[in-house]
C-alpha cells in the first residue's frame, strides 16, 4: 500500500495544478508535484529532479548526497568485515 517508486521529473504539464510527467524506470505518468514545490523550489525547478511517487503524488525529493553517504557506510561495513587469511 505504502509503495513508493523513484522517478525523474521530465517535464511540467500543468503549472497551475502543479502536474508534471515522471519517468519511473521507463513508465511515464502524470504526477502531482504540490508536496515537493515550496519557496526554495519552483514548479519549473522540478524538471530533472528525482522524486518518490506514491498514488500519483510526488511525496519527497530523493537526496543524492544522502544516498551516496549511505552506500559509502555500507562499503565501509563490508571492508571492516572482510574475510581474512
Amino acid at each position, binding site marked *: 500500500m505504502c509503495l513508493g517508486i523513484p522517478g525523474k521529473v521530465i517535464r511540467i504539464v500543468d503549472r497551475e495544478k502543479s502536474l508534471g510527467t515522471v519517468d519511473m*524506470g521507463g513508465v511515464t505518468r502524470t504526477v*502531482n508535484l504540490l508536496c515537493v514545490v515550496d519557496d526554495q523550489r519552483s514548479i519549473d525547478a522540478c524538471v530533472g529532479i528525482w522524486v518518490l511517487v506514491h*498514488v500519483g503524488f510526488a511525496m519527497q525529493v530523493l537526496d543524492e548526497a544522502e544516498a551516496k553517504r549511505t552506500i559509502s557506510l555500507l562499503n565501509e561495513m563490508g571492508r571492516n568485515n572482510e574475510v581474512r587469511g
Partner: protein
Amino acid sequence: MKYVDDFRSPDLATGVLREINVLMERIGTTAESPIRIMEVCGGHTHTISKFGLDSLLPPGVQFVHGPGCPVCVLPTGAIDTAIAVAEQPNIIFTTFGDVMRVPGSESSLAVAKARGADVRVVYAPSDALAIAQQNPQKRVVFFAIGFETTAPATALTVLQAEKENVANFSILCHHVLVIPPLRALLEDSKMCATAEGLSTHSINVQESLKMGRLHGFLAPGHVSMVIGTKPYEPLAQTYHKPFVVAGFEPVDILMSLVMVLRQIANGRAEVENQYNRVVRPDGNPAAMRAVLRVFTPTANREWRGIGNLPESGLALRPEYQQWDVFAHLTVPQREAADPKICQCGQVLRGEVEPWECKVFATACTPETPIGACMVSSEGACAAYYNYGRLAPNKRLPLAPTMGR
C-alpha cells in the same frame, strides 16, 4: 534503476550480513530465546519474504511482522459498509486494487462488481476525481484508505475538488495513523513489559532482552517520509525500544537491522534513520499541512485484530463534511465480527507466524482468502504464500564471519 540497484547489491548485502553475525556473537542470544525485531510495514514484510532475508540471519534474531498493512487492518464491517455504498443506485465506487477481494462478512467489492455495482480500480485519488468530472450525473465515491503516506494524496484531492467545485465527488474515509497501534502493541503486557525508570540511562543487553516479546522496531519508511522521525521518539523513550526508519530494498532492511542490533548491544533505545535519502527529520511539512487542513483524528477507529483504538483514524473536518459520502446517502453501518477461524489478528500483532494459522494455505489462499492478510500483496500471509514459505523457516548456512 537509480536508487534501487545499489540497494539490491549482493556484495553490499554480504558485508552487512557479516556485521550482523559479529553483532550477534556479541549479543549472544539463541534460537530458544531470540531477539525479536518487528518490521512495522507490510512493504518491509514483502521485501524480507521476497529476498529470503530472514533465512540469512543467525538463529538468535528474528523478524516479527507488524500491523502496517492498511488493507489488512480494515475490519470486516468497513468492507460491508463499502459494499453497501457501492450497491446504492447512481454510484461509481472507486478503490485501490488491493481492497477489491478483501472479504466482508458476506461478499467483497469484487463480488459486488460481478453483481452489477459500478466498482472501478484507480491508481490515484486524483483519478477518481477525474471520473467524477467525466460523470457529472453520478456520485463518484473514493474509498480513502491508507496510513499517513496516503492521506496527503486524499487531502489534496479533496482540496482540488473544492477548488474546481466537483460536487458529485465524495470520499468514504478510512485513513489510519501508525503511532496508535504501535503504542497499543507496546502497552500489551504480553508483548512488551514497560521499562519504567529505565528510560533515562542505558541498560545492558540482558536487561533489555527481558523486556517483553519485542526488542526493536524497523519503522515504516514511507509513512516517515510524511510524518518524519520525531513521532517515534516518545515510544522509544517510554518503552526503551530502538526504532530505525528503514528503506525498502533488501540492503536497506539488513542495514537497518545492524543499526537496531548496535543499539541493543550498547543498551541504547533511540530513533535513527537509515532511509535518509528519502526521510527528513521533519517529514514533508507541505503534505502534513494538507492533511491537517482537511482531516481531524477520529475519537475511535476499529482495527482488524487489534480492536478499537482512540484517535487512531482520520475523519473529514466539519468544514469539509460535504465531501463525506455520508453527507449524501445513508447506508446501514454494521459492526461485523471477523471470521472465527481466521488468525489475522494474531498475525497482525506479531503473535503467530502466518504458517501457524489453522487455515493458512489450506482453506485460506490468495484465490479464496478468508482473512485480509492473505489478500493484500503486502499482507504477511500473502507474502509467505507467494514466496513458498509454507512451513517453519529453515536457516541457510551463515555468511562467513571474520577469520580470526
